[in-house]
């Protein structure tokens, strides 16, 4: 529909359609949606016809990416690494991701290669997991880091997805690295309204969300700093089907330009625009590309 008078209708930019179709994959949360929209704009500008398919989990799009049903996905460095690692070596395999982006990338590349996936250079922008408490709780106990919380020495209930248990970037890291006493993991979705409610009304003390979550402040919640670095490097990186990349080598430049320009602050800002100002991801993406002078 061309009801929209926004200047950002990429489909109308000249060269559309003569390089064939590209399927952009991704997950259906705000950030991924914005990045998919940025990818779509870039690709359409490069003359492709673009279809975007946002799905719920990595399980769904990754096999499709390696099969070539999906061509390109904006993904997170450590998340992708861990996924491929456990897929190959089993759920109890030792983590090969770390808080060092270069090392993580080095671990990822061979794993991705095996699946027919190429990893383009990651951006500096990251979206790591993070833990939050209520503003009141933080003020009462003068908390700003996870170490502060551990120093309190009180058992805490953690609201996080069930897979948190034992993970080094979650319950495992919190107990082993920080020495937190986690009495119970209440299974609540990542960054969900439920977990935020539960923290706010004290059913749990600690909740899990992402560093680019723009909504916490409004809800009276605060992040605690990961001062001991248990969170692996979740730098944003384009994952491309290897065959597709081989057929379209010029894409690498396009996406490198994006990765260089993108920062964590950009992500948080764009998230706020979508999550709070309710702008459409496509519009936010177009604005971003224009501001950065990429398009």
């Amino acid at each position, binding site marked *: 529909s061309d*009801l929209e008078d926004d200047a950002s209708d990429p489909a109308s930019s000249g060269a559309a359609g003569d390089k064939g179709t590209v399927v952009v994959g991704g997950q259906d949360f705000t950030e991924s949606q914005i990045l998919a929209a940025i990818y779509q704009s870039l690709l359409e500008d490069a003359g492709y016809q673009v279809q975007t398919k946002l*799905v719920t989990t990595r399980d769904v799009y990754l096999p499709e990416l390696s099969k070539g049903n999906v061509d390109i996905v904006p993904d997170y460095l450590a998340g992708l690494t861990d996924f491929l690692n456990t897929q190959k070596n089993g759920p109890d395999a030792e983590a090969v991701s770390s808080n060092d982006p270069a090392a993580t990338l080095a671990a990822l590349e061979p794993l991705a290669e095996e699946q027919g996936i190429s990893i383009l250079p990651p951006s500096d922008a990251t979206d790591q997991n993070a833990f939050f408490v209520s503003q009141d709780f933080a003020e009462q106990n003068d908390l700003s880091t996870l170490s502060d919380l551990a120093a309190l020495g009180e058992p805490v209930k953690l609201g996080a997805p069930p897979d948190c248990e034992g993970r080094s970037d979650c319950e495992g890291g919190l107990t082993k690295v920080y020495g937190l006493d986690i009495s119970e993991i209440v299974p609540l979705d990542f*960054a969900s309204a439920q977990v935020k409610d539960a923290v706010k009304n004290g059913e749990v003390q600690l909740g899990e969300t992402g560093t680019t979550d723009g909504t916490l402040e409004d809800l009276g919640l605060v992040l605690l700093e990961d001062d001991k670095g248990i969170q692996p490097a979740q730098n944003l990186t384009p994952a491309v089907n290897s065959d597709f990349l081989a057929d379209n080598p010029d894409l690498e430049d396009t996406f490198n330009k994006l990765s260089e320009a993108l920062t964590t602050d950009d992500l948080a800002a764009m998230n706020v625009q979508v999550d709070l*100002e*309710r702008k459409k991801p496509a519009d936010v993406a177009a604005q971003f590309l224009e501001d950065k002078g990429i398009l």
Partner: protein
Amino acid sequence: MALVDGVPQCYVDNDWICTRYWTDYRPELVDASVEHLWITVISVLAGLVVAVPLALVARRNAAVESVVVGATTIIYTIPSLALFSLLLPFTGLSPTTVIIGLALYSLTILVRNVLAGLQGVPEEIREAARGVGYSDTRMLLKVELPLAVPVIVAGLRVATVSTVALATVGSIVSYGGLGNLLLLAVGNQFKAQIFAASVLCVALAGILDLGLLLVQRLVTPWTRHAR
């Protein structure tokens, strides 16, 4: 709260009801509703097309009935996530995945109601039909199915409404119709969108339900004349 100027107040307040949302997102809402509608309709029709022969096979004897009803039971208990993942390797990120899944779920309801409907046909009417030389097929088409229509349509209505609800799950493979909007909105607490998508879901279910009721009235005129 530091918000950019010109953002509509109801977005700022994150109101449930926000007329601005309905105009801003009209194309998305229309597209999603249309997708939701056709996925639902095709799934239920596919389910019905499979359910009727299954029910017919099932009523031949008690053992087959147990197997058929048991099998559809098992399908129904497979969580949609798992079912879709099972289908994914074969059908990929396509509407087919969703449609097959939804059709399979609707089977459970449809098979049982088709069976119950057929069982409800009075024996003397069956005997009269057999007596004048109706073949099994003809009796089915001309007597049993028409008389079973109220119960079958009751099943179709449940199946349709339930499919409208379940179709949202299709968002896991990006063909969830209004479910796509719903899931995104739940993720970022976009209440106006949650509300709009939910209302449209309900409206869709309501319209389909009403439509089926009218169809039933139309095809069972004899029930309107009291004795």
